């Protein structure tokens, strides 16, 4: 299997007043292509920080980070933007759709930043909306959609640029249990198709729907185990 990402001795601290808070204290992590990994931990364990660094939304103080054989370091804003667009798809807890753009326009946005023509963008965006079953809602604004629908639009958007790695930050955090399982079922299907998925969660049932659980505590990895994936479809 190909190594999707490799992290070596990653450190990160945030200044708090005069002192600093050491959030990540030497993380080593390797994820193969096609894996579905849950990163767990109580709040303050550093799980979101780790995800942000992997997502190039934040930078580590020290350590190596190699994504798909590309060393990620000395990122300029521009370079980070290009890498994010090319390698990564983001799914957020609060969906983060642009409120004044309708579903299809939201999905098409990463393609705009890839420089695709409008016609091609809309075509691709509609295709991905179809995959999440929302073609009929293409012209609706986010505030006309339910939470589950919004998250599906967000997933379609994350998929639109065909990223190598899908990063999800508490993707079910704002959804009720039933909708959460629907979303997880969908994410599992994506993984079945070969997408590598990394998600942060603090819900055991959601984590158990992944194939591997990495537990963080106080900035170090406490436990890294492969689990028997619980299929979400049985709950839906």
């Amino acid at each position, binding site marked *: 299997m190909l190594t999707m990402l490799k992290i070596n001795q990653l450190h990160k601290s945030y200044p708090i007043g005069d002192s600093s808070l050491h959030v990540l204290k030497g993380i080593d992590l390797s994820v193969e292509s096609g894996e579905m990994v849950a990163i767990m931990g109580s709040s303050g364990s550093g799980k979101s920080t780790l995800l*942000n660094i992997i*997502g190039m*939304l*934040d930078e580590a103080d020290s350590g190596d980070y190699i994504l798909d054989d590309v060393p990620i370091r000395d990122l300029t*804003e*521009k370079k980070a*933007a*290009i890498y*994010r*667009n*090319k390698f990564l798809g*983001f799914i*957020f807890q*609060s969906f*983060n*759709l*642009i409120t*004044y*753009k309708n579903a299809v*326009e939201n999905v098409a*946005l*990463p393609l*705009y*930043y*890839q420089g695709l023509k*409008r016609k091609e963008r809309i075509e691709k965006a509609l295709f991905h909306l179809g995959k999440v079953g929302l073609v009929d809602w293409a012209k609706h604004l986010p505030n006309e959609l339910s939470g589950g629908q919004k998250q599906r639009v967000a997933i379609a*958007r994350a998929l639109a*640029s065909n990223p190598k790695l899908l990063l999800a930050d508490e993707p079910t955090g704002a959804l009720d249990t039933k909708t959460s399982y629907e979303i997880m079922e969908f994410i599992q299907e994506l993984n079945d198709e070969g997408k590598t998925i990394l998600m942060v969660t603090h819900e055991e049932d959601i984590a158990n729907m992944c194939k591997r659980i990495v537990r963080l505590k106080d900035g170090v990895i406490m436990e890294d185990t492969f689990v028997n994936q619980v299929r979400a479809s049985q709950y839906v």
Partner: protein
Amino acid sequence: MFDIDLWREIFQSINMNRTRSVLSGFTVAFAILLFTILFGISNGLLNTFAEGFVDDANNSIGIWPGTTSKASNGLQANRRIQFTNDEYDFLKDEFGDKIQFMTSRVLKNANASFRGEKNSYPFRAIHPDNFYIEQNKVQEGRYINQRDIANKTKVAVIGRLVEEDLFLKTKALGKYININGLQYKVVGIFNDEGGDDEERMIYIPLTTAQQVYGNNDFIDFIYLTYDPKMDSDAALVFGNTIKKKLKNRFSVAASDQRAIRIDNKAQGTKAVEMIKFAIGILVLVIGFGTLIAGIVGVSNIMIFIVKERTKEIGIRKALGAQPKSIVSIILIESILITIIAGFFGLFLGMGILDLATPVLEENFIKEPGVSTALVVGATITLITAGAIAGYLPAKKASRIKPIVALRDD
């Protein structure tokens, strides 16, 4: 490079955030509106002042004799001073290089008649230079010329309204007009922007009048214009010098204020210059004030937009937006709003000025208005300054870490 997608993004953003766009445009529109109206009114004030001095050349000095009020050099007070051609020649010799035009005048009253029509007019005997000093315009025929002076011809140049009064339906040119019992040939008709009184006037050659009225070389009045290159201060000094020399010539006491009278337009010119200067300063202050207010407004808009769109910027960056694209989307949107609002304010202001013109003209504000070039210039300045002022917030927005922006709820 024209990027249709960028513009689509911008128009969508403006369209979907109408309240925000309208509110932010309001400041700019208001600034330009105020600028236009205030500038227009001050322009009108300036026009009023310019209008007030349109009659004669504004670099003129009038000199006429009076009666001494003080004894001097063994001569008694209450002595009448009489100018003659000698004074004219004296001034010409003494100050020739500083004098632009000069005329002597003999002033009479004319009972003029043509056929049955009679009327009474001021009647001036003059040198040809009078033409330039009075800023007369020859409407028909010619003006008094040097040959008339040399030959003491009996010709008259009459004002437009004299012709209207006396000649009714016929043409005056070439006809003979009876003035105080003598026949003068009308060789020209003139008009003058100085008003009706200036056009109810009859001019004849100076020498003719001197021969007809007493066969002497007396003159009642000397009117001259000084070199226009002289500023008003130098002109005031020049007027005083003339006065002093003439006082010496007639052995008048230096402190005698009645014997030699002088009317120096430079006094008025100086006052007008000062008022113009004051209005100019006022306009400058108004202009800068409104412009600065506008710039501050634009900056505020930008900061506001960036603040409001922080999360959106974060999302866009997470999806792969480069800093350049963030800067341009924000900057162009605000510039677009500024342009639309700026020109809206401009046209509204011009419209208001137009509507208010009748009321303003009743209140001594003549032709209020602004040159299009000026206001368009101001609008462009505002837009440019706004863009520069707005660049910093936009740049800052492009540097927002997506992680920080996404946390912003």
